[in-house]
């Protein structure tokens, strides 16, 4: 299955990119990559191309296809980072030793109200995580998931939780 080396297409990079430039910009715009990150995303793609070009049959399609995929991965990484931030924030708040009992009680109550809006399997998993401190492998055992799939399930539930936090809007603001 190894890709045999083919002579690199005689495509000087400058000519190739001059031709592709409008489409590269269109891809970055379509995926809404923030400008401050767009250069890095494109640079990584082009650097990869420079080192792998011998195994690439169609440089134009490779660069465009890989850039699109890179953009998708960029957003996937951003979402994962946000979910991890939300998760860590909740776990640390629940475990904060200097918090008065009343504060912890309030947090538990508020969290339960949010969790109750989620799909059933997420409710179960997140209650195990935040109330009982179950790590994913233990949660997998309790809920009958394979250990290899629990992390994916947890990520989906954290996504639901985060979406619920911003979709909330309809609950009366207790703080007035």
């Amino acid at each position, binding site marked *: 299955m*190894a890709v045999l080396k083919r002579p690199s297409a005689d495509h000087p990079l400058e000519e190739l990119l001059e031709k592709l430039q409008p489409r590269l910009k269109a891809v970055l715009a379509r995926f809404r990559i923030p400008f401050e990150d767009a250069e890095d995303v494109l640079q990584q*793609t082009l650097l990869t191309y420079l080192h792998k070009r011998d195994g690439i049959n169609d440089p134009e399609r490779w660069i465009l*296809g*890989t850039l699109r995929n890179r953009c998708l991965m960029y957003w996937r990484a951003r979402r994962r980072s946000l979910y991890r931030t939300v998760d860590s924030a909740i776990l640390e708040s629940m475990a904060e030793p200097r918090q008065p009992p009343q504060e912890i009680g*309030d947090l538990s109550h508020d969290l339960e109200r949010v969790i109750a809006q989620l799909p059933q399997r997420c409710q179960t998993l997140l209650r195990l995580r935040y109330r009982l401190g179950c790590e994913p492998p233990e949660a997998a055992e309790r809920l009958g998931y394979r250990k290899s799939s629990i992390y994916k399930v947890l990520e989906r539930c954290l996504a639901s939780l985060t979406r619920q936090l911003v979709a909330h809007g309809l609950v009366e603001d207790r703080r007035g």
Partner: protein
Amino acid sequence: MGSGHPDNEKLERLFRGRLPEADSREVVRHLVGGCASCAAAARVFWEQNISLRGPRTTGESGGWIEKLVRRLERQRRAARSERQSARESLHELLDQPAARQLLRVRNSRRFQTVALCTLVLERAFAEGLRDPSTALELAELGLAIARELDPERYGEALTHDMQARAWAYVANARRLTSDLRGAELGFARALPLLARGSGDLIEHARILCLKGYLRLAQRRFDESVRLFDRAIRRYGTVGDQHLVGKTMVDKGSTYAEAGDSPRAIRALRRGLARLDAEREPRAVLVAKHNLILLLYETGESEAALQLLNETRLLHRALGNPLDLLRFKWLEGKLLSEEGYLGEAEGALEGVIDGFVDRKMGYPAAIAAMDLAAVYLQRNRIGEMRRLASEVLPIFQSLNIHREAVVALTLFRKAVERESLDQRLIGQMSRYLKRSASRPAPRFRPTA
């Protein structure tokens, strides 16, 4: 922040992943508390930064891409120089004993390049067809190189790609040495690295294919086909029809192994139509070889024989001894089916000797079953006994699992008792084919 609302800047930074931990905790706590106005503000930043519903970015209009290309000029020259010196570095490295190879890789930048890593891994893959143990050593050497690649020089994304590829090749080599558990662990290392890589669709597709082979070896056929389909889509996106074709051929092999001959033939024909014979003639050879067998098994003998003649010419042109041996095996089986038993006998005897010389226990044992079937048809009892008593014990010294050795012993006893029949030979043959990819439970002949 106290009991007040987070300002918009903090909310935005949370969703952009740029808020310090302590502040993140406070903002999240506030949102959990159910503040409607802050949730509404957060929704805007969610859409702009996470859910791809914000306004399209327009970017700076002034030639930033041209500036980027100029900055990449140094890397372009470096990449070319690396490729030019990689072959020499490869020979120098492989001339060393294994322990010294690792030392050189760890201590010398000359052996810490993407180009060298690529060559070593390609060599590992090619070696898998001949000698899986050597393939594994080479893949592990490739992994050692990948781990030394400098992210400052290549960017993190490319170094992750190479590490992912190396792990996938280690996994593949483990599969070839029948360490399927080790292969699974290798892919578990590869995939997270790939997720942090460059997004190279060929890299993704390649690793999907390798995992597809593992699933095939594990006889998880549906999963294998799904993996190959995902790889096909990626190869198609980058416009590489040859690799699309190769993967279709792999898919065909999966269907064949699963016993679905019509789907297998369709996939093989579609794959063959896309293969570039100039680019990789052996891929065409493998596809035609597998198609011949299937056509014959489904009763399309004329088409099979026609393809056999075409393939013979291609084999002679390529001249790979192991491929020629396998082709001779195929010829022997077809000659046997067509009733040319004398010619089949000669061919199969030569094939068994060839596999034994190469210490390939399972193919030798499976070919011996084909020969036993011919002897039985020709009522050559003496040759059958010789096969059972002299040749079969040789397989015990080759890399055959204990249960397969027990099965061959049962076979020998059946020969001695003259109770051997075509049904038992067929069962043995199927059992040995399954055992070749993983240890099978004890062989139990059915009545």
